Structure formats: structure tokens, C-alpha cells
């Protein structure tokens, strides 16, 4: 089993996998610390998955529980599918971090605390009446108490930093210690610090000194034997060149790749919103890749500019999160009516309304599939991991240009921020899907369709001889002239529907991720539940249960074999981070009695939660 079953062996210390969580104030640099430990761990050839968990406030008041920022990494010598159920090592940089994270630490787990931050003031801000280091709160855990603040300040003394700047290096001290604890080579962290602070060498040197001091502390300090270094052997990973990849990076590169494979410039438009902004930030510098980015005045302007871009012959892509997608809806309907390519990326977050901006959820599936006025069908594609996001984004671009349709691309806050090692594909291996703009005036009709795809021709304004007008008013099914004719509206509605449904013929059959076709139970998921479902099913199968895992990428339309496949199982379970959206669609489409397994607390499923749900049906 993953997560909870890991044992920190006190004598051998050889672990199959381990979960480490860095937690501190949002100003403590925990995300950077976690990212750097991830890099060092990836270099050590462990497989891994990460889970950054940070507050919505940029700088919540220091020392408060709502200002705690955490970064969790699960790594091991075997395939890692999730960021881990239970934490083995918790680094708590202050009392508030300890308070909010202790519950996730497994019994017997190791707590590393910075005693320098356990001041009376910080204890009271965190709501501790007495110091948890002394009052028995930590009974049953192992604890390593170090005055990191003081030791950091001492280590960086030679560089002449002020006290505040000196203390800011303590996250690197902690990283140094954890690097030592797991036998990580910290060269990569050192190189990164030197690069990041290239223009401020004294800051770079101070941080490196703190990193080294933390590492040296582990090596030399008189620590009891239970704190000796742990060994997590390298995983059996397929050969190749790897990098660490976040979901946002996967989507960004997939969109660039998709535009390139279509032979089009990319016009990416957005409006700042958590957690979708990362895409805009990642794409903005890529100007040599034919990418133009536009930060619009609002979500509506962003989608409209993207549609304008597609109209003029670029690949228009817009991105947001649920509330922003809601604002874009009317314009998406126009793209449906005018049959223009458009990719809409939704980095889902907790809702409704503003909801939980920095927490993950999968509750925009209805919005993606049904969420427009009138009969406004479009394609919906969902990615399930950072690496998968790259390929799924390419697929979204392919469908958009081939079928002249908006495509809703679903990712979520968890995928966007999570990182995994990624075997880098060779771009030359991807199948191009070049767009052929119509330039021949002979016989041109605005809404005449390709007999196979039912897509209309894409004509760029500026093309001589093909002048025409399009718009949101219903159009004649061939000429594109305004038409209020009753039969014509029926025909156009049917055309729009059939075009999207026809995509089913152009996508792969639904595969079974683990297990077999037919059998007792299939767990059907979509999006970021891939990891926990995959591990839970694998654990249950290892225990001899007849259970399979199916994960859906093409949410709409679904692969043509989906109905038969689902009906080949006695029971279908659908775990989702919502109150039951895919399950409703599956029930509606295939008349099957699929059962929901739901969770909406802003956090990904734990493996054990899915196992427990499965046990009831096995």
C-alpha cells in the first residue's frame, strides 16, 4: 500500500517510498524549498509526485494558521501515483505549521521543528495554550527539535546580511537537513541558488551557506540513531531523458505543440485568476515559438479576443478557472454558432462562486459539457496528470482545428501545481495535423461542410474572392445568410450536434487502465483522481480482488465503445471531487446504475478512501 504503510525502519532505514511535507509561514519559502527537494529527489532517480498546498492570501499575517503554506512530496523506488496519504516526515517551521499539519502525520512519523520560531507570541497566534513540544501533544511521534533560526543566522554571518534577510535563509537550512536525511545530492540546489541570485551574490552565498550548514548539521550533530539518514533506493524507471513537469507546464507546452502541429500561430488570452494564471505566465515569454499572449481587461474580453484570433487565422486559446469560465460562456456559444476553433482551458478550483481559489476540485464538469444557453455542443477533453496534460492539450488543439469547434480542456488546481518526473518526448514523433485554409473561391459556401467531419471551411479574412459575413444569428445551412426559417434551424441544430458527436469516430476506443474488460467492479474516473484510483485499484488487485480502472480523457463525446465497456461490469464506481457529475452523465448516456464516490474538501482523494469505498462492493 501507498502512504500509510511506509515504515521508517529504525535500523535498516531502507524505504520503498516516503512522504515529506514542508510547512511554514507563507513567507517562509516552503514552495521553493519543496520544489528544490523535488529536483534533488528526481536527480536521485526516485519516482515522485508532489502536492503544493498554499493559502489564498498572498501574505497572510505571519504566524497564523491560515497563513500556513505547505508542499508535500511522495517519492520512492516504485511507481508513485499520488502525493501520498500520510506524511512520514513533517518539517514545521513554526507552531501554526505544526498545528495545521500534525493530523496528517502518521503515528511514529518524524517531526522536524524550528524551535527558534516557537516563541510565546507564535504559540499564541497558533492557538496553543502551552508549547506542544513540551505538553505531550507530540507523544507517539518522533521529534527533532533544532533552533534553525539561530543556526541559520550564525551560518550566514560572514555575508553581512541584516537579521531579517539572514533569517530568510532558514528554509535553505531546512532543505540542507532534509537533503542529508534522504541522502540527496544538493549540488542541484546550490546551482539553482547561484542562478536565481546571480545579481545578488551575497544573497546567493548566504543561502548556499545555510543549505550547507543544514546538511552539515545532519552529518555531524550528535543525533540519536533514529535520526540517521534514510535510504530510498532509485526506482525502476524506463530509460530516457527526464525533467520535472508541473501540470501548468504540461498544458502550456501542449498548447504550443498543438499550434505548431496545426501550423498556426498561437494567440493565448487570459485574465489573472488563481490557479489558471500560471499558464499565462508560462506562455508569455515564448515569443520565438509563435506565441502571442494578451492579458485582457476581463474574462469576457479574453475569450472574445481568442475567438477574434481564430477568426483571423490563429489558434485562439483562452484560459481561466470556473468563475471566469462562467463569464466566457456567452462568447463560447458564439464560437459554437460561428463554428470557429477555440480551446478553453479550465483549471478547476473549489466553488461555487469564489469558493476555494487555491484548493482543487472537479466540479466544473457539468459546466464544461452542458453549461451554455441553448443546444450548444462542444468537445470536452480532460487531462489526468502533468505529463498527460501535454498530450491531452495537443489533442484539444487537434479537435478544435479539425472540427472547427470550441474545445473545453479540463485540468485542476492539483494537476496544475503538482509535479512529476516526465520522460521527455521527441517532438518529431508527434503526428502533425496541418490546417488547410480555404483560398479557392470556386463554389464556396460559408456553411458547406466536409462530408466526413461536418466541419465548415476555415477562411481567413484577407483572402480575395471569399468575402462573407458570420455571426451569432442563425444562418442558412449552406449560404450562411441570416435565416429564421424553422426547418433551417432544425437542420443547423442537428448539424452542430452531429458534428460534435461524430468526433467519437476520430478518438481511440476507451482503454482499461488496469484490469480487464468485464468483471466485478470497474472504477471509472476522470482528471486528477487518476493517481489515487490507480493505486487503490492496484492495491486491491494485489489482494486478489476483481477490480479494474477506467480513466476517461474524452469526456464529450465519449469513445464509441464506452457504453458496451461499462455494461461489461457488474458494478461501476465513480470517484469524483464533486457531488457526482461524471456519474450522472454516465447514467444519463448509458442507462447504467453507476455509483458515486464523492469528496469535496479541497484535497485530493486519499488512496485509502477509495479502497474503503471499493471494499463495500467487493
Amino acid at each position: 500500500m501507498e502512504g500509510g504503510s511506509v515504515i521508517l525502519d529504525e535500523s535498516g532505514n531502507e524505504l520503498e517510498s516516503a512522504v515529506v511535507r514542508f510547512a511554514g509561514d507563507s513567507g517562509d519559502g516552503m514552495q521553493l524549498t519543496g520544489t528544490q527537494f523535488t529536483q534533488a529527489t528526481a536527480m536521485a532517480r526516485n519516482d515522485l509526485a508532489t502536492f503544493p498546498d498554499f493559502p489564498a492570501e498572498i501574505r497572510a499575517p505571519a504566524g497564523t494558521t491560515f497563513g500556513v503554506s505547505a508542499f508535500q512530496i511522495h517519492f520512492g523506488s516504485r511507481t508513485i501515483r499520488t502525493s501520498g496519504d500520510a506524511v512520514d516526515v513533517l518539517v514545521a517551521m513554526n507552531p501554526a505549521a505544526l498545528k495545521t499539519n500534525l493530523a496528517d502525520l502518521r503515528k511514529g512519523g518524524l517531526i522536524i521543528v524550528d524551535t527558534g520560531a516557537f516563541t510565546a507570541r507564535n504559540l499564541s497566534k497558533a492557538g496553543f495554550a502551552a508549547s506542544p513540544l513540551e505538553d505531550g501533544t507530540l507523544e507517539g511521534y518522533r521529534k527533532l527539535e533544532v533552533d534553525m533560526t539561530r543556526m541559520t543566522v550564525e551560518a550566514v554571518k560572514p555575508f553581512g546580511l541584516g537579521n531579517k534577510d539572514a533569517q530568510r535563509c532558514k528554509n535553505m537550512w531546512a532543505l540542507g537537513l532534509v537533503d542529508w536525511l534522504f541522502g540527496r545530492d544538493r549540488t542541484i540546489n546550490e546551482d539553482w541558488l547561484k542562478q536565481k541570485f546571480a545579481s545578488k551574490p551575497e544573497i546567493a552565498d548566504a543561502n548556499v551557506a545555510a543549505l550547507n550548514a543544514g546538511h552539515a548539521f545532519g552529518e555531524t550533530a550528535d543525533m540519536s540513531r533514529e535520526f540517521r539518514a534514510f535510504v530510498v533506493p532509485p526506482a525502476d524507471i524506463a530509460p530516457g531523458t527526464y525533467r520535472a513537469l508541473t501540470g501548468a507546464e504540461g498544458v502550456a507546452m501542449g498548447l504550443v505543440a498543438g499550434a505548431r502541429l496545426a501550423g498556426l500561430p498561437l494567440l493565448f488570452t487570459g485574465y489573472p485568476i488563481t490557479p489558471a494564471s500560471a499558464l499565462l505566465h508560462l506562455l508569455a515569454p515564448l515569443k520565438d515559438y509563435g506565441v502571442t499572449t494578451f492579458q485582457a481587461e476581463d474574462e469576457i474580453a479574453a475569450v472574445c479576443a481568442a475567438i477574434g484570433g481564430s477568426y483571423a487565422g490563429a489558434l485562439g486559446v483562452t484560459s481561466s478557472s470556473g468563475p471566469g469560465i462562467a463569464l466566457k460562456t456567452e462568447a463560447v456559444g458564439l464560437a459554437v454558432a460561428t463554428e470557429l476553433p477555440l480551446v478553453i482551458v479550465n483549471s478547476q478550483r473549489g466553488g461555487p462562486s469564489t469558493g476555494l481559489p487555491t484548493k482543487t476540485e472537479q466540479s466544473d464538469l457539468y459546466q464544461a459539457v452542458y453549461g451554455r444557453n441553448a443546444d450548444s455542443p462542444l468537445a470536452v477533453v480532460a487531462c489526468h496528470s502533468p505529463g498527460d496534460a501535454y498530450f491531452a492539450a495537443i489533442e484539444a488543439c487537434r479537435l478544435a482545428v479539425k472540427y472547427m469547434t470550441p474545445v473545453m480542456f479540463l485540468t485542476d488546481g492539483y494537476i496544475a501545481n503538482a509535479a512529476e518526473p516526465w520522460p521527455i518526448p521527441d517532438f518529431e514523433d508527434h503526428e502533425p495535423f496541418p490546417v488547410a485554409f480555404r483560398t479557392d473561391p470556386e463554389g464556396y459556401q460559408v456553411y458547406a461542410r466536409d462530408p466526413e467531419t461536418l466541419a465548415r471551411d476555415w477562411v481567413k479574412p484577407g483572402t480575395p474572392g471569399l468575402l462573407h459575413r458570420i455571426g451569432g444569428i442563425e444562418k442558412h445551412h449552406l449560404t450562411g445568410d441570416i435565416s429564421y426559417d424553422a426547418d433551417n434551424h432544425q437542420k443547423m441544430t442537428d448539424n452542430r450536434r452531429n458534428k460534435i458527436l461524430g468526433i467519437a469516430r476520430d478518438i481511440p476506443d476507451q482503454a482499461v487502465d488496469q484490469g480487464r474488460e468485464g468483471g466485478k467492479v470497474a472504477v471509472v474516473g476522470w482528471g486528477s483522481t487518476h493517481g489515487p484510483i490507480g493505486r487503490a485499484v492496484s492495491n486491491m488487485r494485489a489482494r486478489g480482488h476483481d477490480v479494474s480502472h477506467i480513466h476517461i480523457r474524452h469526456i464529450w463525446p465519449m469513445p464509441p465503445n464506452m457504453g458496451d465497456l461499462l455494461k461489461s461490469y457488474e458494478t461501476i464506481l465513480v470517484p469524483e471531487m464533486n457531488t457526482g457529475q461524471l456519474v450522472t452523465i454516465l447514467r444519463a448516456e448509458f442507462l447504467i446504475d453507476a455509483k458515486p464516490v464523492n469528496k469535496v474538501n479541497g484535497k485530493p482523494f486519499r488512496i485509502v478512501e477509495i479502497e474503503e469505498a471499493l471494499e463495500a462492493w467487493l
Partner: protein
Amino acid sequence: MNIQTPASLSPKDYATDQEVRWCPGCGDYAILKAVQKAMADIGADPANTVFVSGIGCAARFPYYMETYGFHTIHGRAPSFATGIKLANPDLDVWVVGGDGDGLSIGGNHTLHAVRRNVDISYLLFNNEIYGLTKGQYSPTSRPGTRSPSTPHGSLDSPVDALSFALGVNARFVARGIDRRQDHLPGLLARAHAHKGCSFVEIIQNCIVYNDGVFEHFTEKEVKADMQLEAEHGKPLLFGKDREKGLRMNRHTLELEVVTLGDDGVREEDIIVHDETNRTIGGALARLKPPDFPVAIGVLYCSPAEQSYEQAVLSQNRAIADKARTKGDMNALLHRGATWEVAA
């Protein structure tokens, strides 16, 4: 299909075969005619021209222009136009909309297209009413306007389109009148020649829901006294015999109407229109009857070095030229720390 060269086109070549569906007598017909004449005068290439509109009576405009046309959604035409220009800056893009479209539901997009200075010609047809939804008062309606939604008279203060545009740093601001066929085509040609966002308010009579609301300055008998045609480099004179003019009151720093010869007023006292002068442009935009004439013509024109999309594209090019990766996809995929896993 025959492909004509732009030089040979007459106004009717810019008209489509679609039946025009505005109410008989609507001011939009006159504007359509003026636009088609302007297109012929400037030799616009229909294939390279795009008319973009939102929703409303005015927004049907693209269907009647033999060019490319995109009839979009309510208020958002400037945003579509921005995307079009970013994707293809060589296109000649016109945005057409009414006062509700551009100043109410789409006020935000008008604001940003203007301040960004996207190279579009924005024609705002102002009839001070919602026509297509059957006559509700609009954001430009004068207080007290009786309409189905304000049966006892509207209460809110209207927006002045040109002052709004100048307030968000418009670099070309002009006003025309549907009935002034002698004046409007030339004004549109000026708007088209301006690089950057040219914002043109066109006073337009809604014959069904707001008929005659502008007649105090558009009727034949009053127009000489109530319209001031601003021309760059010429004194701001008006009246049947050009006997009236605008002078700056040194005490109030406001414009005042004076009559040549009265109290020794001479032509030298009259302000000479300088369309690059923002203060004059702003003062002219605000003039209102009955105390003042309505100023028409190019009130302000001061082009920026580059329009928005030109600036974006030149920055894109400059950064791309310096990039070491030169658009290499595999270089992008390998960006950052990588490591090898041996077989």
C-alpha cells in the same frame, strides 16, 4: 467570382445583396451610405477589410458591407477586433456599435480598446435609445427621457461618448451626424487614415423610438447656428455668415460664444482649432446646446508612435530574435534541469 481591384470600386460595390432591414427612415441608412462612399473614396480593399459589430440595430451593419464581417455578441466587438488585429495586424478593422452596445454593456471593452490604442476605427452610432429592444432609455439618454422602462422619465446622468474616450486617452476623437452626407464620408476617411484607435461618435436619429431628439441642432433651419464644424488650423467659427465664434474666457477658463464685431470682437480673438491640442479637443467635445453649438469634425488627433498590436508584434519579434531556442520545440521540452536514466 470576380476579384476586383480596389481602385475600380464605387460605393455600391461595397454593398451586399442582403436586404437591409432597418426601419424606413432610420439614420443607419445614411451612415451606411456614407461608409460605402468613404470606402470607395479611400480605395479600401474589400478582401482586406473586416467589419466587426456587437448587438443592436447598428450591429447589423456588417451584413450590408461587401467585405469580411463578424457580427458578434453584445458589447464585445472591440475585444474581438483586438484579437483579430493581434492575429493579423494587416487587416483593416472597423468596429460598429450603438450607444448601449459601446457605452453600457460594452463600456469596459470600449475603454480598453481606446486606451490600448488598437488600430481600429470605432464608429459609435449614438441615437440615445435602445432600438432593437423596443425603446428603453440608454446611457446617453438625457435625464427625463420617457421610455417603456422609465415611464416617468429617466433619472440618471448620461455619458458623453467623446469625453469618455478622451478620458481614457483616446488619440483620435471625432463627431459626425447621419444627415451630414457632405461631411461624414470625409470624417470617416480621416478616421481610417489614423493609425491607432480612431473613435467616431455618429449622431443618429432613431425614427421609431427617439425621433427628433437631435433636431434642435440637425434641422436645416438651425444647423448653421447649432453645428460647429471644427477644422484643423481654422478659427472656430459658425453661424449662417460665420459671424459667431468661440473664445476662451480668461477668467473662467471656459469657452464662450461671441459674435464678430460685438464689443470689438475680431477674428483674431477666436480660437484656432488645433486638433493636436487635447484641451481644445476636450472643450469642444463637451459643448452642448442650447448655449453652445454641437462640435463636429475631428476634435482631437494625436497619433502615437505605434498602435497597440504593432507594439506587441515588434516586442514579440525583438524578443524572438534574441531567443537562443529559435522556436525549437525539443529545446522547449528540455528546458530546465533534465537528467538521464540509463538503460
